[in-house]
């Protein structure tokens, strides 16, 4: 347990240092963007992990698994609470169709590209399909916070572009969580003694039902006039309970809490308050989450680096191509129609991408599973780092002045 104390202590130092120095000192906007998104904590976690310092060793990581489960629930709730129908309808219904097509196109292109690539090294691996599916679904995720951060520094005329990007990102995030929820249903949890023996679709429906129930419970409890501290307690309690329940039943806590968040967002008048409440605690929680995820990262063989670079490139190319074909049509009523290169602005992957990677690691892959699954996890995390590095260039290209 002393290692947990060490990581928490380091987190404070890192956080404090990051706030007080890095952001102000770094000369390049792209570099400071990398630090602002907090992605460097993946590297901090990697350094603390078994690969380097060994402070976050395997035994300690086993002990902090509950924290990861709670983190997943928190991220799901946060994603769900932003899905208010009224707000989502601002670009018209047809835009959903085009964004859905964009998502399908990215999914298809990434799947084909990665299948071909993985087939070279793992030709007859039974888990090849799963590895490719996980990477393809995660390719849909985009960090909305990164877009929002970038948009703070562009001219006012370009701000609507940021809204469009965030809108596409939020719809794609939902698609990714739903698909991942389905994917989880196909596999019995790695740990013995847990998981319901149900069909994938049944598990999926169960996730939706339990999510709706959690949302309703939140709604009922929030109906009364409550202090902020009471609300924090209720949210923490329900996320813990829901996360534990999902783990026990072998369903996705992200999906469960996404539904709970959606119920709250659309049926409660206080959803904005709840969102602010979640955001207050989000940053430290997210940073610890990133560090623990980073500690799981293994870059032992050059193959991981190669596959990560290839994955990042295939994803970026797919987004560019799919964006060029579909996204321009998604916003026909916009005053300033977006450029054809809109897809390039969606390369940042942190946040939900890391969450899905961790979800995959906790629910499906574990150290005793097949090498391809462990490689997939590391490829995913490394690619997220790479995507964070290239995303400022993509966003700069999309938002450049004519």
């Amino acid at each position: 347990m002393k290692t947990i104390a060490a990581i928490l202590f380091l987190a404070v130092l890192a956080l404090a240092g990051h706030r007080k120095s890095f952001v102000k000192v770094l000369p390049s906007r792209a570099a400071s963007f990398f630090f602002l998104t907090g992605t460097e904590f993946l590297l901090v976690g990697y350094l603390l992990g078994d690969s380097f310092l060994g402070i976050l060793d395997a035994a300690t990581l086993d002990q902090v698994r509950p924290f990861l489960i709670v983190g997943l629930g928190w991220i799901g709730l946060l994603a769900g609470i932003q899905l208010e129908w009224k707000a989502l309808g601002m670009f018209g219904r047809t835009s959903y169709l085009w964004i859905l097509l964009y998502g399908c196109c990215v999914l298809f292109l990434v799947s084909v590209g990665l299948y071909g690539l993985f087939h070279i090294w793992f030709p007859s691996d039974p888990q090849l399909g799963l590895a490719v599916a996980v990477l393809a679904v995660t390719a849909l995720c985009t960090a909305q916070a990164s877009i929002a951060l970038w948009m703070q520094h562009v001219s006012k005329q370009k701000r609507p572009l940021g809204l469009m990007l965030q809108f596409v990102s939020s719809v794609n995030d939902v698609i990714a969580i739903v698909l991942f929820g389905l994917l989880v249903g196909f596999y019995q949890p790695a740990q013995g003694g847990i998981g319901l023996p149900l069909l994938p679709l049944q598990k999926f429906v169960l996730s939706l039902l339990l999510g709706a129930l959690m949302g309703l419970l939140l709604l009922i409890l929030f109906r009364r006039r409550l202090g902020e501290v009471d609300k924090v307690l209720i949210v923490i309690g329900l996320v813990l309970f829901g996360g534990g329940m999902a783990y026990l039943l072998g369903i996705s806590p992200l999906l469960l809490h996404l539904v709970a968040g959606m119920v709250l967002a659309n049926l409660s008048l206080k959803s904005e308050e709840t969102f602010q409440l979640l955001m207050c605690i989000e940053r430290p929680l997210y940073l610890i989450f990133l560090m623990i995820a980073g500690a799981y990262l293994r870059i032992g063989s050059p193959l991981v680096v190669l596959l990560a670079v290839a994955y990042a490139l295939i994803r970026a190319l797919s987004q560019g191509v799919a964006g060029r074909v579909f996204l321009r049509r998604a916003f026909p009523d916009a005053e300033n129609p977006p450029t054809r290169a809109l897809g390039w602005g969606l390369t940042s992957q942190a946040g939900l991408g890391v969450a899905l990677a961790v979800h995959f690691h906790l629910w499906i892959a574990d150290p005793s599973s097949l090498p391809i699954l462990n490689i997939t996890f590391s490829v995913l995390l490394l690619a997220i780092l790479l995507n964070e590095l290239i995303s400022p260039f993509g966003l700069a290209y999309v938002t450049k002045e004519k």
Partner: protein
Amino acid sequence: MTHLFVLIVLVLLQGLLLKGFPQAFSLVEVQLTLNFGFLLLAAYLFGEWTARIRLPKLTGYLFAGILLGPDVLGYFSRESLVSLGFIDELALAFIALSAGLELRMQDLRKQWRVLSGLIVGIPVTVFCTIFSFLYFALPQLGLLPALPPAQRWILAALLGTLAIARSPSSTLAVIKECKARGEFSESVLCVTVVMDILVIILFSLFLTLVGATGTAAVTHADDLWVKIPAELALSLLLGFFLAWFMSVYVKYIKTEGIFFLLCVAFLVTRLTHAFAGTSEAVIGFSLHLEPLLICMSAGFFLQNLFKKGAFYETTIDQSFLPIFVVFFALAGTGLSLEALGSMWQWAMLYAGIRILGVFLACHGTMRVLGAPFRRGNLYGMSFITQAGVSIGLAGLIPRSYPEGGEVLFTLLLAVIVINQIVGPIAFKFALVKSGEAKGVARKPVGRSARS
């Protein structure tokens, strides 16, 4: 009604999961998520319900713990509660820090006469009352094998000392819940904190005497004379350095307060555990640093010496509810109904005599100071609670008295259960009557209500 509905849904869900996956509840992932979340929510909802019937929320948290714990519904086994132990330690560190922050020298100086009167009066009177009762009545009770007079004397002294112990955490929880601010609540908290330290010193002293009379399994009786002052001094010193570190954090960083406090609490609890092992290897006997004392003194120094308490007070105010709920719900799961059931008559008698001693002390002190009789009643109601330190020290008795020690421990646990249930209710009542409970709407009573 809504609370009851949510509670029923949660209890049903948890019950179903417990029935469907009995083995999985031994996994730490499940214990620290599902079990912890369930306990947090259920205890909170219980607390809200008890608040409606004008009882302290803390009583609700305790009842939730008792009801869901291993003795009644069995939603939490004793094994599963072990993994939640570190949360309990963290919560205690938060509470101790908060208690230290509440002690402001400038306010305490104003009422030094009351404070010194109570700090002297209560221990002396309570000790004498319990001591004389046990010394003379213990042989008649037939709970213990016959002891020689010298050992009976020491045992009565040990139990008399235990009776002085109070519960700073319960006191603070009720003060926070009632949003009480004023001379009365501050003096109660200060006396409670000082008495806890006094109890630790006195208890260790008498334990040394147990060793000296050759009764007990205490092996390092001589070391205790060095050990206890060293432990207290080191704890205070560490508290000072912690306060300095925390003041530096406020000066230069002043952000993510909850996160930082969590780290501090973690560091203190882990360091104290590690220190015991290291000291044994280095100096030959283990020094147990007291996290409660470290955090309490850190809070005190932070408030009065470094003048940076405001930031942490605000931070703790934003997060105290989950901490109190978990801490007292876990305390509830640990309260032994079995012990209470087996010796409730003796326990009631013991608790009654202790309360009598407390009231005598408070009335005597107020009389000497020339304060009104009512004030003595209010103070009397405020010093009944007992919890953590008492349980910890009571646990040492069976080690010192292998024959009959277990029976005494059970009796003490039963007394603590009674005090922990009655104490917060009485204290809340006293706070309301004193007029310092800003967070409690006073219900009009008597004539004014009828009119």
